[in-house]
């Protein structure tokens, strides 16, 4: 990583932690903030897809699909942004699926490691935690406060990862 990339990584992590604090202080307003974040994410995704098409994918066989995807994502992002209110149930569904998927992958990875008699307990614990989180979203389907807490937990995890990845040594020594 370059020095600039490390600084960017720490700053992004700190910004995300600020978002976590906001969600924890005002959980009832949280779901509006999350909805806003998701619509902005869609907008950014649309712009990124278009950038990806013009810089790289236009040289690829079948790359025009990326162009269409970018236009649709941009359109959806603008549509979501224009909405006054997204029903919390959709955001909860999104969180449920994302956590469940991550949890299942972690459990499968732990099983693979266990078959090899390698280290597996930490992965299994993380997987079970993710699945429990998904289930809690499922049980409290219409509770915006819970939604804010679950989202805050995920955001905090990502923020810590971002900050942590700015510090380890990453270069490879070469002896001619």
């Amino acid at each position, binding site marked *: *990583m*370059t020095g600039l*990339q490390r600084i960017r990584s720490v700053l992004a992590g700190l910004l995300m932690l600020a978002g976590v604090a906001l969600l924890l202080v005002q959980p009832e307003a949280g779901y509006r903030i999350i909805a806003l974040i998701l619509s902005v994410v869609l907008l950014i995704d649309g712009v990124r*897809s278009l950038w*990806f098409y013009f*810089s*790289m*994918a236009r*040289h*690829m*066989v*079948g*790359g025009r*699909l*990326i162009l269409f*995807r970018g236009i649709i994502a941009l359109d959806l992002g603008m549509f979501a942004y224009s909405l006054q209110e997204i029903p919390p149930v959709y955001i909860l569904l999104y969180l449920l699926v994302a956590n469940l998927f991550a949890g299942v*992958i*972690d459990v*499968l*990875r732990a*099983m*693979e*490691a266990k078959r*090899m*008699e*390698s*280290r597996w307990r930490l*992965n299994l614990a993380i997987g079970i935690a993710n699945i429990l989180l998904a289930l809690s979203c499922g049980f409290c389907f219409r509770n915006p406060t819970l939604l804010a807490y679950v989202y805050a937990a995920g955001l905090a995890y990502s923020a810590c990862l971002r900050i942590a*990845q700015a510090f*380890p*040594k*990453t*270069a*490879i*020594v*070469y*002896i*001619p």
Partner: protein
Amino acid sequence: MQEDFHYYATYCAAFLAGYSHAESLDICYSAQFVDLCSASLLAKIRAPRAAATTQLAMEMADARTDLLGLQNITRIWASFHFLPYDLYAEKKGVSRLYRQKYRLICQPNGSLVEDTVRLAKGSSLQAVGLAMHVLADTWAHRNFAGTPSLVINNTNEHFYELLPDGTERQIKFRHNPTAPDDLERGLFTNSLYQMGENAVMNLGHGRAGHLPDYSFIRYKYLPAWGGYRELLKDNPSDYLHAFCQMIEAMKYLRGERERFEKERYDRAAIEGLEDEIQTILCTRRLDACADWKALGERLSGQPIEAFSVEKYQQAYRDTPESGKDETFLGKFILAALAQKSMVTNKIYRSGSLLAGFSVDYEQKGFRGIKDFRKLVEQAREGEG
């Protein structure tokens, strides 16, 4: 390539190059071990994880695709399975990032193959085996890159098998990783289409399934990077070239040849065996282990034991820290670190950070991932 080629065929090539039965076994074990030496396995035997030469299916599914995760993936797959052909290749009218990924496309007979073989010269048999894996994969995995990239590695529905009777059949892909490929119906498993440029599904030949790993198959398709030009992949021919080039390389490593040169294949070494080898390569089946094993046993007159991933693990674990580098797996780990360090350095020097930073020890001393300190210790021992 699979166990049939990396283990049994490599044994045959090593024996034909002049190695003894025992040496050939060590070489082919190391060649096959490249496909199994994952971070999980290294964690299990308490070995440096930076020496990983592959990633397991679930390690891939769980792999991070942020900057550091992608660099780790690229270091592993470009160094051991998709050796880049030309790190200074030019392609007009494309962005810098596209060009950097384009330059990682694997092909045989690149300068990095020479570097790989030379790196193994004067080193352990484990280093020889590892180099043979890398060399052989340049033939099987050609036209794909060892980094996740949709724009380089994607394929589409224009994919046809050229059958032995001269007809063509469109290949149908499915995404069930537990279902075996169905040769009769032309039904193969490949990775899911993912629109994200850096999705792990777009690593290497995932989008073409295991087709590059079968020696018998001939097919044509449109590589994503090829500008709609149809590409014919002739595996029987490529695998035969790989076999004869391995013999050539190992004769150099044994000291029978003064130089290792690209595009030289020791066809003389297989005189009298060519028809049998062609038959093994061209027979339609998922696994040719039995025939390669029979050929190897006939060549040496010795039994070839089945590959066991466990074989050397206990010895490595039981050896005190000071003696680990002298064990079978210790030597393999040193060879893997050296190969990864060399390829990362070449990619870095070409102006690309796709495999991460490389620090020249002679200029800046030791920096970076501490697992690589072993290379410094080994170099000092060599000087001493």
